[in-house]
């Protein structure tokens, strides 16, 4: 036992339970961060990592369980309380104020006592401090003009300036280039080496193993693994994150269907990006009738742009794109892009009518149609007149699918179609997609869950930095993973 082990934990979350409606986001989770260590918190999307950290940071309150900081029991009513206890958070999406300068944002992050100095004087101070921390920043730059890596730096500087002795980092490297990510991790290591502690939320196994002293894995709100980083390996962690393979069940295996004519053909396709110049990469791709093609990619590698371009939501920058109509698009975010939660199910179904459906709406026919869809697709709802927001996530996604498939699309484009769904609901979604493919549609989908892609596709494409690479037939998880990360 070293001295560190004997000291009180920097943060101790004990038996935390948190409900969102009837869904248990966390159940009896205990999570301990020893002082002077970096602790990686691993898990898939929706495993409860962020929820747990939001509880530690006072943004959410658990139904059950206790929080201790440096051995003292605390009750956080707001992030302010958490900051006062020496906890700082670096959010996945920067929370700085875009229209203000770096110095103003840093000053805002300081406690009132420290902020006695006036703004004019803090400019030099912010410059020096950020350089001292190894995170140099221009204090007079407006945050909106900074690149994302600089914004991330600012977040960390702000947390440290706010007096944080424990940093909660919510997937800080997700938006960074590899070299920037490495730089960031070394800064965090330095910070920890000075006796502070940090929690690194991530779903990158290698990052966790390379940088953390300890690792905790969450799956569906339960701790499935807890150990020292040097006492485990990637396979063990992957199993803990994803669960034993093969328990998801599948309806039709890859390659059982005979592919037909190509329904999506892209040649010399250059994608438009949300901001900045178009992607420099040229894409060629073809998907045939009866095929389910999955795209495996780490977040931010152009898969979103590709899918939305093919779906016709975003026009291409240049090149030829031939997509057979009708096209159904299943967007990632059900509640802001798929459904209008304040409208009824009937109204939401009518929103999905094909453009040629006529300028008048026959509401009684639409209601009958909706009732039929609810029955066929087993959507659990009070009826066609229920509001979309009254449905659970799984039932919402069933409705989105029902609406899309009822148009008998030739091409189906789906972003993370099973995101946030429980096992049964996820399986149901993929069963529907497989049925559509069997009926002669071309299905192209992406999931952030690599196993879902591997499991549910006839053919896998990998996207990396805007480039589409075919995965060799029969490639296993490791091969595809290396292709995704560019480590082949």
């Amino acid at each position, binding site marked *: 036992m070293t001295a560190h082990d004997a000291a009180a934990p920097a943060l101790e979350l004990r038996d935390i339970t948190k*409900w969102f409606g*009837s869904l*248990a986001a966390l159940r009896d989770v205990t999570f301990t961060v020893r002082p002077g260590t970096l602790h990686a918190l691993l898990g898939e999307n929706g495993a409860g990592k962020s929820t747990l950290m939001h509880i530690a940071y006072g943004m959410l309150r658990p139904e059950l369980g206790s929080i201790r900081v440096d051995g003292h029991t605390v009750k956080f009513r707001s992030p302010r309380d958490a900051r006062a206890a020496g906890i700082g958070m670096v959010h996945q999406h920067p929370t700085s104020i875009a229209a203000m300068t770096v110095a103003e944002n840093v000053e805002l992050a300081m406690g009132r006592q420290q902020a006695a100095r006036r703004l004019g004087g803090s400019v030099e101070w912010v410059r020096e401090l950020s350089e001292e921390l190894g995170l140099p920043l221009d204090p007079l730059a407006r945050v909106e003009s900074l690149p994302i890596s600089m914004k991330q730096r600012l977040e960390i500087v702000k947390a440290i300036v706010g007096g944080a002795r424990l940093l909660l980092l919510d997937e800080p490297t997700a938006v960074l280039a590899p070299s920037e990510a490495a730089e960031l991790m070394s800064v965090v290591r330095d910070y920890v080496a000075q006796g502070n502690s940090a929690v690194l939320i991530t779903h990158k196994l290698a990052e966790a193993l390379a940088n953390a002293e300890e690792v905790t894995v969450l799956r569906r709100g339960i701790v499935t693994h807890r150990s020292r980083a040097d006492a485990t390996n990637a396979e063990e962690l992957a199993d803990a994150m994803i669960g034993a393979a093969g328990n998801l069940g599948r309806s039709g295996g890859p390659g059982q269907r005979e592919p037909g004519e190509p329904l999506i053909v892209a040649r010399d396709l250059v994608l438009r990006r949300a901001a900045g110049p178009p992607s420099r990469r040229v894409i060629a791709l073809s998907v045939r009738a009866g095929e389910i093609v999955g795209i495996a990619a780490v977040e931010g590698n152009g898969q979103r742009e590709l899918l939305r371009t093919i779906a016709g939501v975003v026009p291409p920058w240049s090149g030829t794109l031939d997509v057979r109509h009708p096209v159904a*698009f299943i967007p990632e975010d059900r509640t802001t*892009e798929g459904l209008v939660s304040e409208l009824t199910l009937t109204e939401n179904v009518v*929103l*999905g*009518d094909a453009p040629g459906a006529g300028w*008048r709406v026959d509401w*009684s026919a639409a209601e009958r149609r909706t009732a039929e869809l609810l029955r066929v697709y087993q959507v659990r709802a009070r009826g066609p007149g229920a509001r979309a927001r009254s449905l659970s996530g799984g039932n919402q996604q069933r409705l989105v699918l029902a609406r899309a498939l009822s148009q008998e699309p030739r091409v189906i484009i789906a972003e993370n179609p099973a995101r946030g769904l429980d096992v049964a609901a996820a399986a149901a979604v993929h069963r529907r997609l497989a049925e559509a493919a069997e009926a002669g549609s071309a299905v192209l989908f992406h999931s952030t869950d690599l196993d879902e892609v591997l499991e549910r596709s006839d053919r896998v494409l990998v996207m990396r930095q805007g480039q589409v690479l075919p995965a060799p037939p029969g490639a296993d998880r490791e091969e595809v993973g290396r292709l995704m990360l560019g480590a082949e």
Partner: protein
Amino acid sequence: MAKKVLTRIPKEEREESAFRRRLRVARHTLLPVVLIVVTTLLVLGAALSLAGYDAGLAGAALWRGAFGSWDAITSATLVRATPLIILALGFALALRGGALNIGGEGQFYAGAIAAAAVAAHVASLPAPMAIGATWVAAFAAGVIWVSVPVLLKLRFGVLEAISTLLMNFVAEALVSWMVQGPLQEPTHIYPQSATLPASAVLPVLPGTRLHLGFGLALVLAGVLWFVFNKTRWGFQLRAASYEPRVVEIISRRNVGAMLAIALLVSGGISALAGATEVGGVSRALYQNLSPGYGFTAIAVALLARLRPGAIILSGVFFGALEAGSAAMQRDAGVPAVIVYVVEAVVIITLLLIEARGWRRREALAGA
């Protein structure tokens, strides 16, 4: 225990009979409106009593002035209601899509100017054509007037609420210049336009002052009812006010263009109120033609929860208040301006009942 929570069926998922649903909708839409109106009037009565007025007398005078006689109903209440209904319809059309057109007052004046200007040139035409010409001109003027805020919104992202408000003052100055400049009456003495030629004056219901503009208001309400409830465009416009991206991604519509059209037509409709006021009531263009109709119309539209049919009723209600308040001031000495307090209380109470404004209103498909 946890298991129990997971398996219980949420209330939302239980079946509901059509009758119960109608009852629920009625409870959510009608009841608060009636409650607001009744409480506001009761509180007002109590306040007047406290202030030393004879509330009974005031109430009686209000009623007499608004509904006491055929003449009061037609020549006072419905005449006052006409511009309110038309302006409220314009406001409601924009707000259905989530845009705030606070410029009703300015668009009213744009329409009034256009109607007065065109009327002078169509004296020789038969009445239906002359009136039609003034209405078309007014509608076009309203569209043009509101196109400035629309362009600012589309091109520069300027809040339409601010720009339409600013345009009101420009419109008022424009009227002021018109009646002392280009459109001034021939003798150049009074700050007003020439009286409209007979062919451009709106026909009235015999024996009353109720003019054709009220008919136009009813027709417009019918058209908007159809657009809102029976057309895909009208429905998608409402959906866009909640979640524009769903309409863009799932319905494949250009929401910006939809909103622009809604605002432009909203301006055109509002301008028609100016044309009917000039053609049916004032019969010439004056400064201060509107005693704040554009703002009262906001209360009218909100009380009706943006439903065209209900806008007719709430327009008549506010028209009656304004008509009756004149009688109240005359007979009971109660200041007529007190009507504005009623309007304010109605607007604020409705805003509060709906928690997040109009966005959470209870409305079912086809209801």
